[in-house]
Structure formats: C-alpha cells, structure tokens
C-alpha cells in the first residue's frame, strides 16, 4: 500500500509559519556571548582607570584577553569545535573594527577641517584675484574640480579602451606576444607617478608638441591608469567560464562577437571594478600634474590650450601656505576630492549593475 498526499491538509499547511530555525539561538548562547564581550571590555577599562599599566600595553593585552574569553564562551556553547571558529571570528571582527576606525578617522579629520571651508562661493567660484591670505569668503575651487574631472575623463578615455583591449588580447586572442605584453603591463604598474609626469614633460611638452594642459595631464594619468585597468580586466575576464565561450562559438558566433556580446557582458561588473580601480589609482596623484597640467587660477575649459588647476595640485599649493585660511581651503579641496570620488564610484556601480536584457 502506498501513502497519498491528503489535499484536505493544504489549508492547515498554508498556516505554517515561515521561519529560519538556524538563526534561533538559546538564551544560554546569548548570555555567554554577551559575557564574552563585556567581561574583557570591563577588565580593560578597569586597567585604564585603576592601574599603572601603560595605555598602549592595555590595548595590546585586549586582543588576547578577548580571544581567551571568546574561546571559553565557544567551548561552553559549541564544544571543542567552536574554539577555532571563535578565534577566527574575533580576529576578523577585530581587523574589521581596526580598518573601520582608520577609515572613519580619515573621514572625520576631512570633515572637521574641511567643512569650515565649504560655502557657495567655495563650490562655484575660481581663484582669480585670490591670494593665499584672502579670507575664506572669497574665491573657490570650482576650476580645480573641473580640472580634475577633465583630466580624469581624458585619461579614462585613453586608458580604459587600451586597457580592456590589452586584457582581451591576453585572455581572448591569446596571441604569441602574450608573455611579453603581460611582462610590460606588469613593469608599467611599477612606474612611479613622477616618472610618468617627467616622461610626458620631456617627450611632448618640452619638444613643443603639446602645451602644458589638461590633455598633457590626462596623458600622464593614462600611463598610470593603463596597467591597473589592464591587469584587473584580465583577472575578471579569466573568471568567465570557458563554457560560455564554447557555447557561443557552437552557435556559429565569430570570436569577435563572442567577446563583445557574451564574454564582456558576463564580466561587466568586474570590468566596471577595473575602471574604478584605475580611476582610484590616479585621482589623487599630484606629482605628474605639477609637471604636465600646471596651475591656473582661472577656469579653463579648453583641454589643449592652457595650464589648468586640479584638486590635488591646489591642495598641494595651499597646504604649504603660512595662512590658516589657505590651509582650510586645502582641507576643503580634499573633502571635495573625496566626495567626487564617492560620486564617481557610486555612479559607476549603478551603471555596472547586472541587468539581464
């Protein structure tokens, strides 16, 4: 005899509650974990307050103390197997908190110094007729922000296509020169940024081929951006499974179509990451711009004609001035630079989101 499903039970079954039993914890577990967190903290606070142990040493003691406490908690709740897990968890959380604190303190110092500089004129005006001693109410860094955007755009226009093409040559074309290309790309990523600036200065600007301008700055940036884009793109293209390539080829696709319609779309998020990393590599670089783009208090929109100011260069210029207002301007510029980066990356992520057509 077989057993049949009884359809009359469906209404009862539909009343079942949707739960995640694996997230349920016992009270004992919660209490032990809470104790494992609180007790070492209390000990450390007590050592800060009531003992002569140097503060630095107390902070060093904290990690092993927390490890021991978590180990005991783990062995009480999960048995011997839990101890190893607890060591990894404590270290991971500790490392995360550490990097979080670092990032927050960077952002905090930018905000606390930079917010003072922020004002409508600061965001909309250039620095024509502004000297380092001019009060904060006058002049702004709009021209420098524009310069940075212009130069990054030029360098991305040059480096991203070449970088992705390089990656495609290495992973998709797989030509004879692959080992050499990879070698040169790797060597290129070791080029110091100042050398990239010098190169453009001596070969193009001093020979009179181009002016000190946004274009020259963009070329110097492109030299720095190219290896980062190429190597990251290569890594992500390598992650695309070969089944996709053979699948497309088996449909009668040409190799070029396979690359552009199957492989690259599959790696889209990764390619966007490659571009982001490339931009992140260059956007704060100052040395090459000093030599190639120069500085200019006025707003420049023609990328070929005149020297142009950028955020890193104006930070560099201002921070060395003996006037507090100039230093505050530098902090404000740094804040704007960071906000620009954040906006750029968020937009890139939004564009790069995987959408299925």
């Amino acid at each position: 005899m077989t057993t049949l499903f009884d359809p009359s039970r469906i209404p009862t079954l539909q009343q079942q509650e949707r739960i995640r039993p694996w997230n349920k914890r016992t009270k004992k577990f919660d209490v032990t974990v809470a104790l494992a967190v609180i007790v070492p903290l209390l000990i450390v606070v007590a050592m800060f307050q009531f003992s002569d142990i140097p503060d630095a040493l107390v902070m060093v003691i904290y990690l092993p103390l927390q490890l021991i406490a978590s180990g005991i908690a783990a062995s009480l709740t999960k048995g011997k197997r839990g101890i190893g897990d607890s060591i990894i968890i404590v270290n991971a959380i500790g490392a995360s908190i550490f990097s979080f604190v670092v990032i927050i303190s960077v952002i905090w110092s930018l905000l606390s110094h930079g917010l003072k500089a922020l004002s409508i004129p600061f965001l909309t005006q250039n620095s024509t007729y502004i000297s380092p001693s001019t009060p904060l109410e006058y002049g702004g860094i709009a021209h420098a922000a524009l310069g940075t955007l212009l130069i990054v755009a030029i360098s991305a226009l040059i480096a991203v296509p070449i970088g992705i093409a390089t990656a495609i040559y290495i992973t998709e074309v797989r030509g004879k020169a692959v080992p050499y290309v990879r070698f040169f790309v790797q060597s290129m990523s070791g080029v110091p940024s100042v050398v990239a600036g010098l190169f453009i200065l001596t070969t193009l600007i001093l020979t009179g081929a181009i002016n000190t301008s946004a274009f020259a700055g963009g070329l110097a940036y492109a030299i720095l951006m190219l290896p980062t884009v190429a190597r990251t793109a290569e890594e992500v293209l390598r992650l695309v499974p070969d089944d996709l390539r053979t699948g497309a080829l088996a449909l009668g696709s040409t190799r070029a179509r396979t690359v552009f319609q199957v492989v690259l779309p599959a790696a889209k998020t990764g390619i966007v990451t490659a571009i982001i990393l490339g931009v992140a590599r260059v956007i704060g670089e100052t040395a090459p711009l000093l030599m190639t783009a120069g500085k200019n208090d006025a707003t420049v929109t023609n990328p070929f004609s005149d020297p142009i100011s950028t955020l890193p260069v104006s930070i560099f210029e201002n921070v060395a001035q003996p006037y507090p207002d100039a230093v505050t301007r530098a902090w404000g510029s740094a804040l704007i630079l960071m906000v620009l980066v954040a906006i750029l990356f968020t937009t890139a992520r939004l564009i790069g989101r995987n959408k299925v057509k």
Partner: protein
Amino acid sequence: MSTAEFEKSVVALENEFAKAAEIRPIELETRDVSVWFNTRKVLEGVNMQFEKNTVTALIGPSGCGKSTFIRTLNRLHELLPGAALAGEVLYEGKDIYGPTVDPVHIRLNIGMVFQKPNPFPSMTIRGNVLSGLKLSGMKRSNHDELVEQTLTSAGLWNEVKDRLDHAAGELSGGQQQRLVIARALAVNPHVLLMDEPCSALDPASTLKIEETIRELSKDITIVIVTHNMQQAVRVADNTAFFLAAEGEPGHVVEQGKTTDIFGNPQDQRTLDYVNGRFG
C-alpha cells in the same frame, strides 16, 4: 491437522517472522516540512520516514523540490540566501534544526554526494578520501586501511590502487563520482544523501554506482534523488513521487514501497509519471 496443512502453516509463520524482521527502526523522519525561498514556497507538507539501512528514491519532474528537500535533510538548505523552513526533521528522534544542534555534527553524520563530481582538485586520490577527516578534525587510526576500505566500498579500489598519489582530476567522471562517494564514506556517516549522482555518467559507471549503493545500504541509510526511473526500481526499497503544479509548491503525491509505486500506484499522476507519459 494433516501434514500438508501443518507445513503450510509453518511456511505462513515463517513469512510472518520474515516480515517482522524487515521492520527497521526509523533513522530519519520529516514532519510537515515546508520550504521557502524568500516568499516563494517551493515545497509543502512533506512527511517522510527513512528506515535504517534502506534506500529511498525521490522521483519527480524537474523543479518540484526534490533537490531542495534533500538539502534540508543535512542543513545545507540554510546556506542559500532567502532560505526558510517550517516543520521538523528528526534524526534519531531529535530535531536537527533545534537551537542547540551543531550543523557540523549533523553533516558529519548525514553525508552528501552531489550531481556533479566535486573532488578537490589540489589533492591526490588518497588525499581526497581522507579530506573529510582533516576537514572535520576527526581522528581515525590506520589511514591506509581506511582508504582501501572506503574505495573498495565505492567500487573504485581496483582501478586506482596503483595511483593513489595521483591528482584526482586525472580520473574520469564516473571514477570521480565514486571517489566522492568514498570520500563521503570515510567520515563514517549513518545516512548518505545523493542528489542525482549518476546524471552526468555513462551507463557502465551508473551500473557500478548502483551496485555500490546496494552494497552500502547494508550498513547505511541512503536517500537518492533520480530522474532515471529504472534506477529507482533497481536500487530503491521505497520511493516517493514529488510533483508541483504550475505556480504551486511541490508535494509528495505518493510514497511507499518501490514495487507498489511502480506496480500499483493509486494516484493517476503517479501512474502517468512512472509510465513516462509526462515529466
């Protein structure tokens, strides 16, 4: 009472005893198990009992929740994002989803073999067999004996005994699958879950693995998902037929002895399915 009649009653009595001996304790049991992915209910009210040292086949068309169900039996389901569950899964009478239960312990006792053979590519054949011991921190003496014993149980020993230190990737698909079975056996599980273990294999390898399953069922309880109905007939003591109507969660439409499911099903849909008329 004549001699003939007496003999007849003795035979009847013997049959009774044989039947009584066949009743086995229940090792694994599910009670009203329903499974969700986010808000989509994929499985509803599964009540099954897996007796000790039997083979149970789960059959049914694609997308009816068989694989999802088998993954709830050793707590692999919860690793998927959005996974949720209702009901109870009892292993040796205790709910494996209880708050004090360590999933590692459950998975150690309830092993699993997947559709695609997944030997660890960086390890040798021997290393793969012993990997479970290393990964779970289990101590067992005499590794050589264990390797030979599990590979023999998985029906692979004769083919690989001279190249135990070769990379596992050198083996063919069927051999890899048997290696993975040996790997699962090395940690000495009480239950082995198999999710379409033969779907990527040729008939000869399939036959070998089926022999292995029959052999293993003397010592462990096996649950196997299969799309191959002949396979269910060949290896399984019991069979459960899963089915999901369009846009509705899957149910176990009918379950029972394999011979009954295939020979004398009560539900028309089961009859149609086992005769290959749909699905």
